[in-house]
């Protein structure tokens, strides 16, 4: 248990060790103990501990055997003859995959792979339950067809397989799937809970960090525990224990987006737009998801402008983000948002200053 990021190092392994929402852990324990384990759908914001809970629940069901993992590459062929490969993390009792990795071919994965698992019985006779568990990550990115296909599989093979879906929101999961699962909401931890967890970790790492430094991290992390722990590790690595007035570390890309927002506010001209495009491209090439760029930028801008303009900024961002999800080329929508913001802001300034 040494090495690795702190996030992984201090990930709770059992339901008892989970810090926040103890009632939920209690419920999951009850479910794991009962014969009649339903399909589950975990949903909640990121960094709230959905995945940790899923792993802990499976451990509760099958014992430590689920932690012996192996990684496979599976190749399946689509009806049109195209080969699709997907990586699977599995143990003797469960199997975990992210069908949305393969984009539009996720239906094939659901139909072929999950069905194959669903049709085979549990081999290990010592196993506590007759069923296997299939964990599907990012279930909200499953295409509609894949969800339809899942619907029948879930009904047909209930005796052999239980499906655990993990999603950020339930809006995109079709109603028939939702009604077949027990919905489990995982709320984000409170700020005080985050602070407690951070204190514990700091103690174990023997890093002397000031309490108010931890408090600041907890407030700044947007109630995302994963982010908070990463920030703490970064801060300690930068030597936060020595100088106590040091600022809370931010990720590079966050700092970069903030700077971009300041530039947009400083000048609204076509030349500036070109410069901003450069910066946006830089972010995109560093693999920062376009949705996150847009969202962070929008909130930064909303904080910088005057009160009456704030709703407009959000409206523009909501519009651009919606288009972004449907479209293909992220830069168009990001740039469109920036251009529109510049136009609105400029005309606002002219109006107010009376130029």
């Amino acid at each position, binding site marked *: 248990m040494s090495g690795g990021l702190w996030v992984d190092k201090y990930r709770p392994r059992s339901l008892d060790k989970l810090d926040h929402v103890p009632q939920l852990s209690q419920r999951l324990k009850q479910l794991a103990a009962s014969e009649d384990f339903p399909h589950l759908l975990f949903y909640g914001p990121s960094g709230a501990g959905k995945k940790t809970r899923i792993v802990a629940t499976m451990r509760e069901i099958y014992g430590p055997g689920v932690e012996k993992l192996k990684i496979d590459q599976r190749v399946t062929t689509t009806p049109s003859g195209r080969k699709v490969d997907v990586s699977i993390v599995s143990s003797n009792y469960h199997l975990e995959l992210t069908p949305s990795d393969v984009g539009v071919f996720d239906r094939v994965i659901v139909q072929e792979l999950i069905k194959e698992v669903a049709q085979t019985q549990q081999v290990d006779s010592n196993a506590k339950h007759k069923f296997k568990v299939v964990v599907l990550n990012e279930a909200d990115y499953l295409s509609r067809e894949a969800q339809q296909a899942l619907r029948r599989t879930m009904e047909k093979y209930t005796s052999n397989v239980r499906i655990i879906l993990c999603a950020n929101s*339930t*809006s995109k999961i079709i109603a028939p799937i939702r009604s077949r699962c027990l919905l489990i909401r995982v709320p984000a931890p409170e700020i005080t809970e985050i602070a407690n967890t951070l204190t514990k970790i700091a103690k174990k790492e023997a890093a002397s960090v000031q309490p108010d430094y931890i408090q600041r991290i907890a407030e700044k992390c947007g109630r995302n525990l994963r982010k908070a722990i990463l920030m703490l590790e970064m801060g300690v690595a930068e030597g936060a224990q020595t100088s106590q007035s040091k600022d809370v570390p931010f990720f590079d890309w966050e700092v970069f987006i903030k700077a971009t927002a300041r530039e947009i506010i400083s000048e609204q001209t076509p030349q500036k737009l070109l410069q901003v495009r450069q910066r946006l491209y830089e972010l995109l090439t560093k693999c920062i998801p376009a949705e996150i760029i847009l969202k962070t930028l929008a909130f930064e801008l909303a904080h910088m402008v005057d009160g009456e303009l704030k709703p407009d900024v959000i409206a523009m961002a909501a519009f651009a983000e919606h288009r972004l999800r449907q479209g293909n080329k992220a830069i168009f929508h990001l740039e469109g948002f920036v251009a529109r913001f510049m136009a609105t802001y400029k005309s606002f300034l002219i109006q107010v200053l009376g130029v």
Partner: protein
Amino acid sequence: MAARKDKSQSKAAAGIDARPWIEKYRPKTLDEVSSQEEVVQVLKRSMDTANLPHLLFYGNPGTGKTSTILALCKELYGPEVYKSRVLELNASDERGIDVIRDKVKNFARVQVSAAHSTTTTLPTHRPPPPYKIVILDEADSMTSDAQSALRRTMEQYSRITRFCLVCNYVSRIIEPLASRCAKFRFAPLPSSSLLARLTHVAAVEHVPISPEALATLVEVSEGDLRRGMTFLQSCARMKGAGGGGGGEGVEAAAGGAEVLPEDVYEVAATPPGRVLDGLLESCKSKRFDRIENTVTEIVAEGWSVAGLLQQITDRLLTSPHTTSVQKAELALQLSDCDKALTDGADEHLQLLNLASRMSAIGVTA
């Protein structure tokens, strides 16, 4: 049909009756069908005269369309003849013109064998009628080509085979088909029938549930009995009650705590009323930072934004303090937001946008 059969078989092998309650408590006779008196009355009369028209059932989900036709078939044929006389096609798996041309047509044109008609006696003491039934479930998801292919088939073999189309939206059934059928509308179940049925199931399954929780259950299921049943079962599972599901296991009841209204909200993924109250309160303040904080809080708590939209609709569109113009503007905003969410847009941004618009429109609950 196939899916249902497989499931019940594999479950029987497992030893316990762990079927979902919606299957377990599906009505077996027409009399057991909750509500829908008019439809049941008409069907019963046609049963007596052994003269059944082609049927078209439409209505909201969970109002008992499939249950009614299945119950009718069971009463008409009894368990022995049922398999050879009823073809149930779930249109969402096997649609398309090929299926209609092959499977349905072949089934429809084979004559009814007279053997069973004389030998079997039914609980109703009536011989099985001399025709077969084809049930096309979810018929509105059939392509219009497939529907057209059905036209002539329906007429040609009407002496031997009756069709029953079941769908949610009658407008998606092509006119020539609709005009060949007797149409029945299934209205959403009134609260009283929902309450009666859910109370009954809760009692049989030994789910300890408070009257308030039952009322909440009725409220969140919105006239959809299937939703109500599923939610009830999920609540029971979550509380660890009635797990064995035998109905005989009295001690099962001792294991579970009472189901409370909050649990129902939790299972239904509907945020409780206080979440909405908080949002409306901050909208009233017209201060952007306050709205932003509330929205951030809601998103961090993981409440389903789609559920919240539904609640906003219910609350504000019936609110006496909101003018018609405001309601119309609000409805536009809500529909935009819902569309965006269904396309997979970010919940945080969409909800914040909606809330700031609501605040601009100036709605008060």
